[in-house]
């Protein structure tokens, strides 16, 4: 019997009276890859944000790895990696600095040099993040989400901006990580 990693029941969220997420229930078991598909503005990111507690749901229950994101924030995010759609970074920061800064927040961080290597940005460590191409930056943000050595990882718009080959590589790596 697999444990439940994410459990959402009757989640509702509206902006200015307009319902974006209406009575959503879902359950994700450990070892599972769960894809949330939908048109632009369908409420995918809003759902993720309600699950992560960065947005307050109007009603409904959410539990992630058995934690409540709001009340057990610090415990939960030791074990969860997140990549946001609109990831931003300090203006002048370099790739290795951003990795170091994220690494030092966790108890058992992964080796980010190795991750960067696997995602094909191993030779860009000393570059400024803003000088990376769109695809490289996207891959860097996936690396950042994997630095915690997470039990669970949220990837919002995972392959946006990646070409077909890079897409396949990313999927392959994530598939391997799942094992």
């Amino acid at each position, binding site marked *: 019997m697999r444990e439940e990693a994410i459990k959402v029941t009757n989640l509702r969220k509206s902006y200015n009276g307009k319902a974006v997420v209406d009575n959503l229930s879902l359950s994700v078991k450990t070892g599972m890859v769960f894809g949330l598909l939908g048109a632009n503005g369908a409420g995918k990111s809003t759902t993720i944000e309600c699950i992560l507690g960065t947005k307050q749901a109007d009603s409904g229950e959410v539990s992630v790895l058995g934690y409540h994101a709001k009340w057990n924030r610090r415990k939960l*995010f030791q074990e969860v990696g997140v990549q946001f759609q609109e990831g*931003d970074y300090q203006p002048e*920061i370099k790739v290795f600095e951003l990795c170091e800064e994220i690494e*030092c927040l966790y108890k058992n961080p992964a080796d980010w040099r190795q991750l960067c290597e696997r995602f094909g940005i191993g030779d860009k460590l000393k570059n400024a993040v803003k000088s990376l191409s769109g695809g490289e930056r996207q891959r860097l943000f996936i690396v950042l989400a994997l630095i915690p050595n997470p039990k669970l990882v949220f990837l919002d718009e995972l392959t946006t901006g990646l070409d077909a080959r890079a897409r396949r590589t990313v999927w392959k790596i994530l598939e391997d990580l799942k094992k």
Partner: protein
Amino acid sequence: MRTFTKLLKTELKLNIRNMNMVIFAIFMPIIVLVILGFIYQAKPAFEGAGYTFLEQSMSAVCTISICACGLMGLPLVVSGYRERKILKRFRVTPISPVMLLGVEFTIYVLYAFVSMVLLFPIATLFWGVTLHGSWPAFIGSWLLTMISTLSIGMMVGGIARNEKMASVIASALYFPMLIFSGATFPFEVMPGVMQKIVSLFPLTQGIQLMKATSLGQPIEHIWIPVVVMMAVTVICTGVAVKCFKWE
């Protein structure tokens, strides 16, 4: 502790790379000191005074960097990080808001400290400035002034809606305090009414206290500046932590 030092190292590097604070908190006070030094040299503060004009101005010059750090640097960094959604990214990590604010706070403490440590040797070397009072008393009053000013900045950065708003509030505090609290313009030459008004600024209290401790003058009612600055620190820090918003 490991997290704190690592974050501090990276954030400090980024801050220095940005250069703003290096100019406003490190170079600007030195420039003001050099100008005052050339104008007043080793002249006494007034006829028959036991100390020079420059010695009297040292506390005010020291607060230029404190002002820049607390009323410009700190609020703008915190609100800028919020606006750029950097805080949002930190929100989905195990970091605590206190740690994050603590790191940024420490960076500006370091700037203010470096500034002071550079100013005194320069003043001593070229214009023979000495500290007539006691160093521990002076450092104590400097610490109090710095921490209270930085806590104001932390509160502004914590509660301002966006960077623009923070920048407006910061300027509204920075310029009057810098100009009227005695940091650029001696308190002694202001008319009585104005002295009363600017006495309400915590920075004015701080400068008066630093001046007295550095010149070794007796201080009447020492509790007034101390209480004012401590109250400001406690209230502002409390508000900053309590009302901290990631987004």
